[in-house]
């Protein structure tokens, strides 16, 4: 009974976000346009300057990285939604109502995952339009999409935890400043092997690199390869990293939520 209500309440809160989309369609459209713009910008502006390993098509190489970067940027959406509710007192209203705290979180998570699914679909459509393809069959491609969404799911908890701990919509700027280097300090645009040793190691161990490497492999797109252990085990790491992030930040988020009553 309690579980049923938690799910029903979670869905009510998800519906609230879906209604936001309906009320502000332009926000969704601009969000998608931003992603499309990134693809076009990197695909056509920088494309000529970067040599793709194995001499493949640059956009074939680029798209898996763009997919993963978009999942990373989703962190900001989660952060903004949670801090805005806390700031406006909506979180307090939920907490003073007879609903489970888990319902609020499940609702948030479902809405964010649906949003990410939509964004990913738009990116894929855009990728197909500029010549990106998957080559290893639909099963492997679905596996790659699954890994991308798994990364988003793991970062969701990081976003919720940061929002509950920092509690400040203004700190979003700081978060954006930190998210960009995380996106670039990876194998998305350049090979970690061309970076100074320690930086390259950092980039290879970046959770984003693991997902990107695994997605390239599953899509059959060209990648950097590499001899290091992480570079050889991207699929394993693309599961292990998100699992680790969830294992750390899910309990931390629950604890931060409970600490609101301190």
């Amino acid at each position, binding site marked *: 009974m309690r579980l049923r*209500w938690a799910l*029903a*309440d979670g869905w*009510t*809160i998800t*519906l*609230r976000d879906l*209604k*936001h989309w309906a*009320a*502000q369609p332009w926000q969704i459209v601009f969000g998608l346009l931003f992603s499309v713009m990134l693809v076009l910008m990197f695909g056509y502006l920088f494309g000529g300057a970067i040599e793709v390993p194995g001499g493949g098509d640059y956009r074939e190489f680029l798209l898996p990285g763009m997919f993963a970067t978009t999942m990373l940027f989703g962190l900001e959406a989660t952060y903004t939604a949670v801090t805005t509710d806390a*700031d*406006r*007192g*909506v979180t*307090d*209203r*939920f*907490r*003073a*109502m*007879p*609903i489970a705290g888990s319902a609020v979180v499940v609702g948030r998570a479902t809405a964010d995952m649906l949003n990410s699914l939509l964004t990913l679909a738009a990116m894929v459509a855009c990728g197909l339009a500029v010549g990106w393809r998957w080559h290893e069959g639909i099963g492997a491609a679905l596996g790659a999409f699954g890994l991308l969404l798994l990364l988003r799911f793991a970062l969701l908890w990081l976003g919720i935890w940061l929002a509950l701990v920092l509690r400040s919509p203004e700190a979003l700027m700081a978060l954006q400043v930190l998210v960009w280097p995380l996106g670039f300090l990876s194998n998305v645009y350049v090979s970690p092997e061309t970076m100074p040793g320690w930086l390259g190691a950092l980039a290879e161990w970046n959770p984003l690199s693991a997902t990107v490497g695994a997605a390239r492999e599953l899509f059959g797109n060209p990648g950097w390869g590499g001899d290091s252990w992480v570079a050889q085990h991207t699929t394993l790491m693309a599961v292990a990293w998100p699992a680790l992030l969830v294992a750390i930040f899910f309990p931390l988020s629950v604890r931060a939520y409970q600490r*609101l*009553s*301190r």
Partner: protein
Amino acid sequence: MASDLAVQVEGLHKRYGEKPALDGFDLDVRAGTVHGLLGPNGAGKTTAVRVLATLLRADGGRALVAGYDVSRQPAHVRERIGLVGQHAAVDEVLGGRDNLVMFGRLFHLGKREAGRRADHLLERFGLADAAGKPVKRYSGGMRRRLDLAASLILRPAVLFLDEPTTGLDPRGRNEVWAAVRALVADGTTVLLTTQYLDEADQLASRISVLDHGRVVAGGTPDELKSRIGGDRLDVVVRADADLAGAAAVLKGLADAEPEVDPDSRRVSAPVRDRVAALTEAVRILAARGIAVEDIALRRPTLDEVFLRTTEVAG
């Protein structure tokens, strides 16, 4: 516990680090009344409300709301309370009706019942015309009324209003006051925190004055006013030179030393026998040739009560 008490608090303690926010806070609120919790910023009003609304855990003491212990039976308490905080805690993007339906669904009303309740509340708070409009285009008073409506979906036994008119213009304030009065007519118990004395005076049947985390004075607004010396006689003289003369006259009639305010040329003193004091004052002032611009009997304002009680405690 006495069944006519909607809120019963004994010795609540809460500290943030070294600083006590509640320091032996006691409170009894009778069912069906508006109780004002009055105090300056930082007195502990919001902390008290957050503990009673199950948002914050107290370090010590006991609090019963609608008969249930806030720390041991928070779920029961949450089914019986409404909370209006200092911000209008509603979704800015959604319309007023969508907000109320969403909260209604979260209170586990059926789809149709949530819609009916939303329409009823929109009507009642004069928001029916703005039902579909996004809340971010509402005025401050409209938001606060929507916030109130959202707190009343389940017809709560106890409603907490934490500074409900802070930041509103006079028109918005009147709208909220009218809404609160209507609630009480329905039998809802209201605990109202405010730093505006006229607000407590207007709405509350009993007031507790809070300072440094504990109640330093309590009673009906009239009792509180009487406690600092009953009625006051104010005399405004035409010329500065007459101030001392007027003070001497009032001193003979009053229980205490008159207060003299040279800026407004006003002499003020507490008096016991209202009418006798007034007629005597008029007679003596005229006899001594003191030109009077204004003379009046009045109750002390809650500001005077407030300053007096918090001074003693501080």
